[in-house]
């Protein structure tokens, strides 16, 4: 067991003292020793040691940018370490490509699924395999079915990926890895896109795999998942392994402190709403996608000034279309979206593009889900990105460069954005800073309505709290904030009311302070099963 007394024994030693019992009959399937990886001037991993055991579920916990994914990508052959050594079953190995990783039985399920959209499930699963004989998709489909039956999956091998839900796609990814006979499974934030029910199902499957003697690593920043699922947890901070703990011997507060590096409070502020006059009223909204699928069906609700209205739902069940319809970016089949200003005058927004909406004096801001693909231009610098909202001002044919520069300077200062200067292209900033630039610009125009989609996705705890504070400030100024979220815990803590969407329909609206998580989860997956249905929708 010399790898346990390896060069930097801190991690394993801590583990030994705390959980010596567990170790008795287990061997390290994978050991990483002194792993360092840099990208340009950024150190993603610094001298990391980590052990992964068979028949065990390990949580890799850390904030965004702490180097969890990079570390695992070196096991799956995507990146190659600058320094350090990887051992499999005690033997030093080199993993320089995903193929070699497979040969060592390592399979990784990436956060962004690596699937070919126009292929069927089974085509994706057999892709890249060096099997003898000619391609026999029927035989492969049968084997896929066997694996599904064995672990309790449900997947149609002949279905095209582009027809699948997110959770189905994830299942295909997992089956793909099992089909290759992987013994070591790495899952990168697998629950980010799942409902509570789907998450439970996934965890059950993972436990089956553990009982089957496989090693499972789950990358996450959600503490409750660590608690319910894993046997052991390793915490990464700023690219370094801070320590390894036995899950049942620790608690959420200890893990958070390790993750963030200082004492943090885990409560999100929720000031009492000061105003409550209707601001946006939506009635009977129907939206069809380009390929003719109904994305929103008869959606009606009211968003009030001075409150945060949360929108919950499985990803892709109409949130994007709803926000884009309000923002004037989505063609609408029927229904109405009425803007009610403070003096009571009304404006119908349907049929207007964003420019027209602004011309009518409706101060509407929108933080879209795809920050660099929609909200900002990745290759432009901060100042030019500020100009996106203001470049039309003035009668001159030429653009005014001064005002946006001043605004950029101010936002960098106010929101403590870390950037070399305002001439830096935004794609070079970290995720949290990109989001601050976008939110900062959208707030700067003094909106009366603020639409936001997955506004803290990919952000670390500190940045997330900064954003929550900004939203609360807007709420206190009397802005109608619409907050599309994916983390139910956050929705329940932050929002005054939560509208639940299911397959393009409103399945109910609940009060934030009193709502119960499991109930909301049920509403996300089934319609009409809730006591709140109807009444409040029409006030």
């Amino acid at each position, binding site marked *: 067991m010399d790898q346990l007394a390896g060069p930097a024994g801190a991690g394993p030693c801590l583990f030994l003292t705390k959980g010596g019992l567990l170790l008795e009959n287990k061997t390290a399937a994978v050991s990483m020793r002194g792993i360092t990886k840099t990208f340009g001037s950024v150190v993603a991993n610094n001298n990391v040691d980590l052990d992964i055991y068979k028949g065990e579920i390990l949580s890799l916990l850390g904030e965004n940018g702490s180097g969890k994914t990079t570390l695992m990508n070196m096991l799956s052959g*995507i990146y190659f370490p600058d320094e350090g050594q990887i051992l499999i079953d005690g033997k030093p190995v080199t993993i320089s490509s*995903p193929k070699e990783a497979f040969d060592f039985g390592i399979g990784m399920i990436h956060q962004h699924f690596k699937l*070919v*959209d*126009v*292929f069927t499930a089974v085509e994706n699963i057999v*892709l890249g*395999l060096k099997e003898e004989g000619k*391609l026999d998709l029927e035989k492969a489909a049968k084997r896929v079915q066997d694996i599904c039956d064995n672990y309790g999956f449900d997947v149609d091998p002949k279905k095209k990926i582009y027809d699948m839900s997110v959770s189905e796609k994830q299942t295909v990814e997992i089956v793909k890895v099992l089909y290759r006979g992987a013994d070591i499974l790495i899952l990168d934030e697998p629950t980010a896109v799942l409902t509570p029910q789907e998450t439970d199902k996934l965890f059950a499957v993972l436990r089956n795999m553990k009982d089957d003697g496989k090693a499972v690593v789950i990358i996450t920043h959600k503490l409750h998942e660590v608690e319910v699922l894993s046997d052991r947890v390793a915490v990464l901070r700023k690219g370094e392994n801070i320590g390894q703990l036995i899950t049942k011997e620790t608690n959420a507060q200890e893990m958070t402190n390790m993750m963030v590096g200082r004492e943090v409070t885990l409560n999100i502020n929720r000031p009492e709403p000061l105003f409550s006059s209707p601001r946006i009223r939506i009635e009977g909204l129907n939206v069809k996608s380009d390929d003719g699928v109904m994305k929103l069906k008869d959606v009606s609700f009211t968003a009030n000034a001075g409150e945060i209205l949360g929108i919950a739902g499985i990803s892709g069940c109409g949130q994007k279309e709803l926000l884009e319809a309000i923002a004037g970016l989505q063609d609408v089949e029927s229904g109405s979206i009425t803007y009610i200003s403070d003096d009571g005058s009304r404006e119908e927004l349907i049929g207007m593009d964003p420019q027209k909406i602004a011309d009518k004096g409706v101060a509407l801001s929108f933080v879209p889900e795809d920050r660099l693909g929609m909200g900002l231009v990745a290759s432009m610098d901060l100042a030019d990105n500020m100009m996106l909202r203001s470049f039309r001002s003035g009668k001159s044919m030429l653009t005014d460069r001064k005002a946006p520069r001043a605004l950029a300077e101010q936002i960098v200062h106010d929101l403590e954005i870390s950037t070399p200067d305002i001439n830096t292209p935004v794609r070079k900033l970290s995720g949290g800073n990109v989001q601050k630039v976008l939110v900062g610009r959208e707030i700067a125009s003094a909106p009366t309505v603020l639409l936001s989609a997955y506004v803290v996705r990919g952000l670390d705890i500190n940045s997330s709290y900064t954003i929550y504070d900004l939203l609360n400030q807007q709420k206190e100024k009397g802005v109608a904030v619409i907050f599309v979220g994916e983390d139910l815990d956050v929705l329940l803590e932050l929002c005054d009311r939560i509208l639940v969407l299911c397959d393009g329909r409103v399945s109910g609206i609940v009060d934030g302070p009193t709502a119960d998580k499991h109930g909301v989860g049920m509403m996300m997956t089934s319609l009409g099963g809730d006591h709140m249905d109807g009444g409040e929708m029409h006030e």
Partner: protein
Amino acid sequence: MFDIATFLSRAVVQSIPLLLGCTGETISEKSGSLNLGIPGVMYVGGISGVIGAFLYEQSSGGNMNPVLAILIPMLACLIGSLLMGLLFSFLTITLRVNQNVTGLAMTTFGVGFGNFFGGSLIKLTGSDVPSIALSKTSHYFSKHLPFADDLGWVGKIFFSYGFLAYAAIAIAVITAFILKRTRTGLQIRAIGESPATADAAGINITKYKYLCVCIGCMIAGLGGLYYVMDYASGVWSNDAFGDRGWLAIALVIFTIWRPNIAIFASILFGGLYILYLFVPTGSNLAVKELYKMLPYIVTIIVLIITGMRNKRENQPPESLGLPYFREER
């Protein structure tokens, strides 16, 4: 009198360079490489074959071995096109430079290369006309089945072509089969759709991309060879190959990346290409020039229609034209 059998057989002869170019480009595009250098490659393929044939005709002094007479030009053509393929691959796959710009530069270079060596050979032969005739070699290339002449119009339409024409159809059918039905085809298509996925699945992206571009170029190069040796009866004259390379690229979209459909589509285009010769216009030569517009106008219409239909399977490979860099962050 409109002679349908003659028209059809001429259309088929016209179609073969288009078909070869289209099949080659399809292979390349399926693996994610949009090779706009194909017109240049076809020139290089053609002139390389001409140089090979020229050298052999000169050195053999009249006693030509039929096998060598075919093999030498063919090998020369394949090597020439392969080198062009390697150049494109190196620049766009290894060095990850913009594919469109590289392709355009290759076409400039390839057409110049063809015309330069064509011109030099013409000067060497000291001929009075600005062309070089390799009728002996062409004789072997255009030899058709002996019984074709006895079969009347059937023979004319189906059996009156040189062996490269049948090879082109066979190549198209085989390519279609490989792309659709085999493990290799699945991997190539995966690379064209999503190289990151293919990479994560353990497929050697660089190897497949190089192979697809190079094989694609070699097949397209044969189109140039067929044009000189069979269609033009061994006569090389500068710029005669014209814009067929571009039409071949347009055909790829028309055939929604399916070489088996390309067999018929290229005959259609071949027919449009020569229609002006068959339309009675009397002494009005100017109108013939307008008829020559047909293949381009039809291509444009086809582009518009293919752009309008939205079926997922009929779209271009998703990563077409994009370089792949694994460690992109």
